[in-house]
């Protein structure tokens, strides 16, 4: 009991000990929050923004050129060939769709769990979800080869009287991903309306007033409106929660319903969902930490928020590590020689270093740093781990897809996958599209949900009368909240 705090002497001392750390630091008030968050949109773009946008938009443009080249020439511009019929295209699809999951987890699941700290990060995480799903949707769209035939996926009556196969996991995927995108847009826009009204009321130019006015739908903060609005928000969260869990489960069915060793596995749905949240949180932090520093949002996105996200990365990273271990165990325990070979090949085959570096070091070992409080509170360590996880999750999908395909049942048909420049630049292009869209979002829309963060300050409580003694916290150097 050496480390236990001494018993409180007075009631006041006891109250201080059980008081929760504030979610908005330095006792910032409502109008400070409005000013600081709207200010990001209202002030001219800083120089770094133009530099960053030029780079990302160039990558996006070249990526779009590659897509045009691939569509006009054919899938042969990629390195995909028998036995590796799915390669970077589906790797990138699973990578991007997984990233989206953190946004929905923050906006929906943490809302249902009444985690108020989500209010500082949910808007940007939801935006990230949308942009990631846009990038994801590109790949299955173009890998079908003849893109103009993609409407065959929809159940539209046609003069050949042909209908899609609704029993196919790929068909489920079409419905899951399109539903996910649509519901995420509806949820995101619903959350945006009160904040668009804030920007409308602060607009100084006619064009801003007009545009924000149109999209704010005439919102006026009426409590009779909030009542229905909050019910809608709750139900959208309730609908999104099973939806997000279903989306990556359905993505995993694309593999799990096949008969290929390493793909044909019942652990895939929970394993994919945990991996998606794991990779998604890393991407949330990758985007938020620079924004927090550049726009000086330290009082809203506090060390406490980063700490909590790091803990989620540790938790989901451990799920993922467990799933990796269980896959090896089941391969051995099954006694199936093809299954055993496939996993042996995973760690000692031609793609050995993808596993040792990508899966083992980046995904399993690097998040273990977050057991240490010092690491969770050091933004450089957090950023390093997030970068490892971003890379590691891409490697994981590559190993699952290409690793499962390149050495199948007959050694005479073995082969390797070699990406072409179109493969590489299409992927870099989607990174450009993703970051460009995020940069535009930060410039034109409030990146923090103002109306929601305001509910997390003490003044929002109707029982808030006399200010309780809350210790003011310094933001410099030692950013501790407890």
């Amino acid at each position, binding site marked *: 009991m050496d480390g236990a705090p001494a018993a409180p002497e007075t009631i006041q001392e006891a109250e201080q000990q059980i008081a929760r750390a504030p979610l908005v630091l330095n006792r910032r008030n409502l109008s400070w929050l409005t000013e600081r968050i709207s200010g990001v949109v209202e002030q001219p773009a800083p120089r770094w923004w133009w530099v960053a946008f030029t780079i990302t938009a160039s990558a996006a443009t070249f990526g779009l050129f590659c897509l045009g080249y691939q569509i006009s020439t054919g899938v042969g511009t990629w390195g995909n060939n028998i036995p590796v019929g799915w390669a970077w295209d589906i790797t990138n699809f699973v990578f991007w769709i997984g990233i989206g999951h953190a946004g929905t987890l923050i906006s929906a699941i943490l809302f249902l769990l009444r985690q108020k700290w989500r209010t500082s990060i949910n808007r940007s995480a939801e935006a990230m979800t949308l942009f990631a799903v846009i990038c994801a949707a590109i790949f299955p769209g173009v890998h079908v080869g003849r893109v103009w035939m993609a409407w065959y996926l929809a159940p539209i009556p046609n003069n050949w009287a042909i209908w899609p196969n*609704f029993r196919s996991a790929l068909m*489920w995927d079409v419905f899951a991903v399109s539903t996910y995108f649509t*519901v995420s847009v509806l949820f995101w826009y619903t959350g945006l309306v009160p904040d668009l009204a804030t920007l*409308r009321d602060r607009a100084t130019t006619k064009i801003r007033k007009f545009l924000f006015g149109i999209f704010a739908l005439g919102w006026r903060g*009426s409590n009779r409106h909030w*009542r*229905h609005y909050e019910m809608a928000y709750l139900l959208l969260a309730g*609908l999104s929660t099973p*939806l997000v869990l279903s989306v990556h489960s359905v993505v995993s069915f694309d593999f799990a319903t096949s008969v290929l060793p390493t793909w044909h596995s019942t652990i895939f749905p929970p394993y994919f969902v945990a991996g998606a949240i794991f990779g998604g949180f890393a991407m949330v932090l990758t985007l938020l930490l620079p924004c927090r520093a550049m726009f000086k949002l330290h009082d809203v996105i506090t060390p406490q928020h980063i700490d909590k996200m790091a803990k989620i990365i540790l938790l989901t990273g451990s799920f993922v590590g467990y799933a990796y271990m269980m896959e090896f165990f089941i391969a051995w325990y099954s006694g199936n020689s093809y299954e055993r070979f496939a996993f042996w090949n995973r760690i000692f085959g031609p793609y050995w270093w993808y596993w040792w570096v990508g899966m083992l070091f980046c995904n399993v070992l690097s998040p273990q740093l977050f057991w240490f409080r010092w690491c969770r509170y050091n933004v450089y360590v957090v950023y390093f781990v997030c970068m490892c996880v971003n890379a590691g999750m891409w490697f994981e999908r590559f190993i699952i897809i290409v690793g499962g395909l390149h050495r199948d049942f007959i050694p005479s048909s073995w082969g390797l996958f070699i990406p072409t420049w179109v493969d590489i630049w299409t992927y870099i292009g989607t990174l450009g599209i993703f970051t460009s869209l995020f940069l535009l979002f930060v410039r034109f829309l409030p990146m923090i949900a103002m109306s929601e963060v305001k509910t997390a300050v003490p003044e929002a409580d109707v029982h808030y009368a006399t200010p309780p003694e809350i210790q003011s916290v310094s933001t410099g150097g030692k950013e501790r909240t407890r």
Partner: protein
Amino acid sequence: MMRTPAGHKVYAMAAEYPSAAALCEAAKRVRDAGFRRWDVFSPFPIHGMDEAMGLGKSWLSGWVLFGGVSGLLTAALVEFGPSWFLYRLDVHGKPWNFWTVPAFFPIMFELTVLFGAFAAFFAWQGMNGLPRWYHPLFNWERFSRVTNDGFFLAIEARDPRFTENGVRELLEQTGGQHITIVHED
């Protein structure tokens, strides 16, 4: 119809309050005074305000249930229609009749969620009478702070209990500041 001396139609009498707590107290007083056509306005939803105003649960959930059920039925129709009648497909060794239903669950689930979400989205706007880009309260200059840090209460002139002096007195008693008449035009 009440009019100001200058001939404007009167929409409401409104006041500003310094905090969410003050607004909530005032709402309780206005509710107890028996007013029906009134509302409070705040930059964020205030916990406990629905009870303070005497409002019950929002039945928006009914629309979402309707949306979800219609999504489920749409999916069942779109899947069973072709499978059973239009285009019998023998694949995966799965039956084409009702017993293929487990393979249809994912799409049924997705469309249930999709239609439910659309219902929630359109219902919160429809039940609130939005979009409505013009409102008399926007005529009041101070009201623009409602999306920043302002807390407001307005009692409409069409409320049967509305009298200029009575309402002004009530708003003053509850601690309302900047009490004003809001014009309709």
